């Protein structure tokens, strides 16, 4: 059980995509056809393939829809934090993470209507350390509910 005040990890969907015309539209089409909204996404790509990472309002449904649609899909937990919208805002968060030895696998930023703050998604190697850091150093993390209902 997680204690109150700790961040709730957010479910992120990852989809394997070959670098082929129309594949991205196939994924987003399958999701929207089921009334699922995308909250944030990013694509990592190489010459041959890409990995689409998605945060949606109904992750479990999206996972099921994509799996049944024949996509290679996985679900993992990420952390979403508010980044103060001022020079050095992101740098401050990253420095805290570096000091605590939190290894970032990848990150991407997105914006939402709720605040002036920018939002960033982090996939980290050692999520317990990151969660403790968030609790202790005043980094403002978003819970799953908050992100899904953006």
């Amino acid at each position, binding site marked *: 059980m997680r204690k109150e005040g700790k961040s709730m990890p957010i479910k992120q969907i990852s989809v*394997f995509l070959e670098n082929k015309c129309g*594949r991205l539209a196939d994924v987003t089409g399958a999701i929207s056809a089921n009334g699922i909204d995308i909250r944030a996404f990013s694509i990592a790509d190489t010459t041959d393939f890409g*990995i689409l990472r998605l945060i949606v309002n109904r992750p479990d449904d999206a996972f099921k829809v994509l799996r049944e649609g024949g996509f290679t899909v*996985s679900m993992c937990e990420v952390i979403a934090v508010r980044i103060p919208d001022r020079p050095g805002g992101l740098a401050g968060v990253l420095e805290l993470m570096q000091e605590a030895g939190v290894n970032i696998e*990848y990150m991407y930023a997105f914006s939402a209507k709720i605040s002036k703050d920018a939002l960033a998604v982090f996939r980290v190697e050692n999520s317990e350390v990151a969660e403790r850091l968030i609790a202790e150093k005043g980094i403002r993390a978003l819970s799953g509910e908050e992100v899904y209902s953006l």
Partner: protein
Amino acid sequence: MELSLIWNEKYECMPQSELKALQIERLRETVSRVFYDAPFYRRAFQERGMGPDDVKSLDDLSRLPFTTKNDLRDNYPYGLFTVPLSEVVRVHASSGTTGKPVVGGYTRHDLEVWAEVMARSLTCCGATKNSVIHVAYGYGLFTGGLGAHCGAERIGASVIPASGGHTKRQIMIMKDFGSTILACTPSYAMHLALVMEEMGIYKSDLKLQGGLFGAESWSQNMRSQLEDRLGIMALDVYGLTEIIGPGVAVECPEKQGLHVWEDHFLFEVIDPETGEQLPPGSYGELVVTSLTKQAMPLIRYRTRDITTIMAEACPCGRTHRRIGRFVGRTDDMLVIRGVNVFPSQIEEVLLRIAHTEPQYQIIVERRGQLDELEVQVEVSGQFFSDEVRRLETLERQIRREIEDVLNISVRIKLVEPKTIERSEGKAKRVIDRRQL
């Protein structure tokens, strides 16, 4: 219970030097027999300017002509018999799904040899005269049923000649008659196991201890499943109608390759393209010369099965050299930059890395003068990670391991599931786009 682990210790554990001496003596007899009594072989020898006296040592074997399946078809049905039909006491034939069946004839002596090698093979999987041997290979023109039958009788076991079909009845018989050894094809053994489960009969209701399975290729994974489901030790037996039927080679309980009964069958592994003999460890086509057959001896018969010679001594005590588990048929072989490549070699690497049956496709193209090999692997389940780094590491690992096995460079491409063309449920493994 008496447990005789080796059926014929004198021959099965004969020192290699004595075995070689016996082989050359028997090879000379066989060559002389085919030269004088089979016009096909006499012509083939004469075309090479050879006569029976030119075979003086085992090294001379490499100068002898090959025999192919086409040669058997051309001489259908009795053309290669070296005895009159009055001496032939049995005729078997392959199923002949592609053209005319392949025929094998036996003299009374040949049946004795067959019973001997099958007795040795059944003994490998624990059969003794106290065993109840359930033979569920088909009885008929197919060599499986009667081959296992005569070996089991030779041992003095109680033989249940169940043949194929009537699966529920067979299970009842196995249970009621207390069958201890099962001899059939591996796929039928699996079917028996599944039907048993449906019937609510457990392996503990049966007395099965060993299974001798052959006539099809089967994987290690299938072996573990059969051993687990039936509570047995499952061993592979190899043979061909052309040579004698099952009993040419068999696994011992070490399960590390198949002992070829070298006092009856002389074997080589050759490069199927050049016909050159290959050293132990190299994969190529198995070629078998019968040493004691009378009705239809064959010289350097090209089996089209791909394996390798294992020269190391086996801990089981049998001195007869082993061949590795079969990795495919020459029909599936690709020649890329002069290197022989079998899809199964690539499959094995993927199986090792993914721990599951992978979907893959091999694409060969020619760029300029050079052949290029690309292996497309479908990314699914365990293969997938949300991190690019992991997928790239996986790609590199697959590439390195395949290159280690094949000794040529390959390109690996990760593709989405269902990308690879499937026809009638079976994936097309090789696409050769070279215009050769």
